[in-house]
């Protein structure tokens, strides 16, 4: 667990970057710090690995004050990923990934062998090992950055806008892989972004900061969408938060009507429909289907793909209304 205790950071020159921040980042979870540019996200993150020391207050990792620890030693135990990957241009991809294990005393050979396995984990083939960062695309560099941060298997990862320098298609891909990786690894992750959608998609918890470095709300993404603490959070979260909050609600309880008027094949599967949903999908998926399907109905299918129910505009509206009361 990473604990911020009443942390203040005032830079020389007078700018208060972080103002009395108290926060707990739970072990094994992704906590996203989000807020407008200049609100102190990067500063908060960098106080965890002592790249910045607080003016007052304390930051504890599992109860130990970080400022009581040797900075270099502390950092070797914390993965650090930054926006433009910050890869060493003069080292091959493999040697970039091997950096921290070598610092920790592993031989170059051992470190390289382990690094090769990590490249695979982040979705890069062994062909990339001998290349130099300049020969990679932005998304590939970012993967190497993640592999490099993971190399010494640190329990904690700090990620400062790790996905913001890549195009939206690559970003979505990296998001999916990142979540899959985290499912396996269960790291304690502190991530910074200015993109609220990214925060909601990736965070187990989200800390919304406002300009001046004050915490506006700390909540799960679902709570954030359902109950923003104030107007600032509400406007930052955006006007379509109602629709987006549906992505946290399962369609399992949604009542369906009997299948009727839909063309089915021999196995009972719907024919010629763009999309169907299952009980595992969210209400947002169903809403989208209802809105976009020609007949205004969404078809539910079972595990075998056979249609087992229909949902219309009205059914969905009634269900959403009934949840409110």
């Amino acid at each position, binding site marked *: 667990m990473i604990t911020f205790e009443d942390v203040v950071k005032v830079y020389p020159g007078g700018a208060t970057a972080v103002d009395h921040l108290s926060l707990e980042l739970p072990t094994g979870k992704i906590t996203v710090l989000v807020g407008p540019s200049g609100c102190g996200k990067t500063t908060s993150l*960098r106080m965890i*690995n002592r*790249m910045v020391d607080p003016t007052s207050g304390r930051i504890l990792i599992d109860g130990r004050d970080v400022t009581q620890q040797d900075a*270099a*030693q*502390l*950092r*070797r*135990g914390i993965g*650090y990923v*930054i*926006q*433009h*990957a*910050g*890869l*060493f*241009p*003069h*080292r*091959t991809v493999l040697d970039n990934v091997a*950096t*921290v294990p070598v*610092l920790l005393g592993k031989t170059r050979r051992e470190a390289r062998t382990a690094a090769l396995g990590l490249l695979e984990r982040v979705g890069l083939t062994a062909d990339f090992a001998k290349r*130099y*960062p*300049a020969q990679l695309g932005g998304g590939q560099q970012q993967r190497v950055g993640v592999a*490099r941060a993971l190399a010494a298997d640190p329990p904690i990862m700090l990620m400062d806008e790790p996905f913001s320098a890549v195009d939206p298609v690559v970003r979505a891909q990296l998001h999916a892989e990142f979540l899959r990786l985290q499912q396996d690894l269960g790291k304690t992750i502190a991530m910074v972004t200015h993109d609220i959608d990214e925060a909601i998609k990736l965070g187990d918890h989200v800390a919304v900061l406002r300009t001046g470095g004050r915490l506006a709300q700390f909540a799960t993404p679902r709570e954030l969408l359902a109950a923003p603490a104030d107007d600032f959070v509400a406007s930052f979260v955006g006007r379509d938060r109602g629709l987006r909050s549906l992505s946290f609600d399962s369609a399992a309880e949604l009542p369906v009507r009997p299948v009727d008027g839909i063309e089915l094949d021999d196995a009972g599967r719907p024919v010629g429909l763009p999309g169907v949903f299952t009980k595992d999908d969210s209400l947002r998926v169903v809403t989208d289907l209802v809105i976009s399907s020609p007949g205004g109905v969404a078809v539910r299918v079972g595990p075998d793909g056979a249609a087992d129910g229909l949902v219309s505009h009205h059914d969905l509206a009634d269900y959403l209304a009934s949840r409110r009361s």
Partner: protein
Amino acid sequence: MNFSYLTDPAHWDPSNPGSIPNLILSHLGYTALALLIGAVIALPVGLYIGHTGKGSFIAINAGNAGRSLPTLGLLMLMVTLLGLGLLPVLIALTVLVIPPILTSAYAGMRNLDHRVVDAARGMGMRPWQVLTRVELPMALPIMLSGFRNAALQVVATATVAAAVGLGGLGRLLIDGLAVNDYSRVLAGAIVVAALAVLVDLFLALIQRLIVSPGLKGS
């Protein structure tokens, strides 16, 4: 004016102390010594200024001052103060190579991608490790280009050694002029120019070998 001096085999006989190969050797000797001493002085200073940003005006003005200082004049001054010998020559040539080496070491450090250096620190490298494993290798291309510049200048200028009675390829120029042997002067000019090209090629080769392929084209 003709090439007879240059093409006469007797002038290439190494057993003759005044022959061209021996003059080349002493010429290269002055050059290497001046570069070595210059680098020992200018590299740490340039790196320090570039790293800390303290005293940038020194690095910036060193370049201009160096270009405007007449080496021959400085050499004469040194001879007046110290008498004849190798020392005044080395001082004059060292003063010549310091500005390009210092300025390029400074520029190499100043132009580092601070995000990469920041990442190095963030991963737990200590200051000395950041310097030797990240900053220096990244600054190497710019530093070496300054060193090549210095080498070219000093190869051309080391001819002044002959003006105060020492050896080197300047002998061909000075002695040739003294006896109106323009074929010898021409030989001196050609060999100096050829040597400059060869030294630069040699350093280019070194640069290829020690600069990471990842930094090529940047």
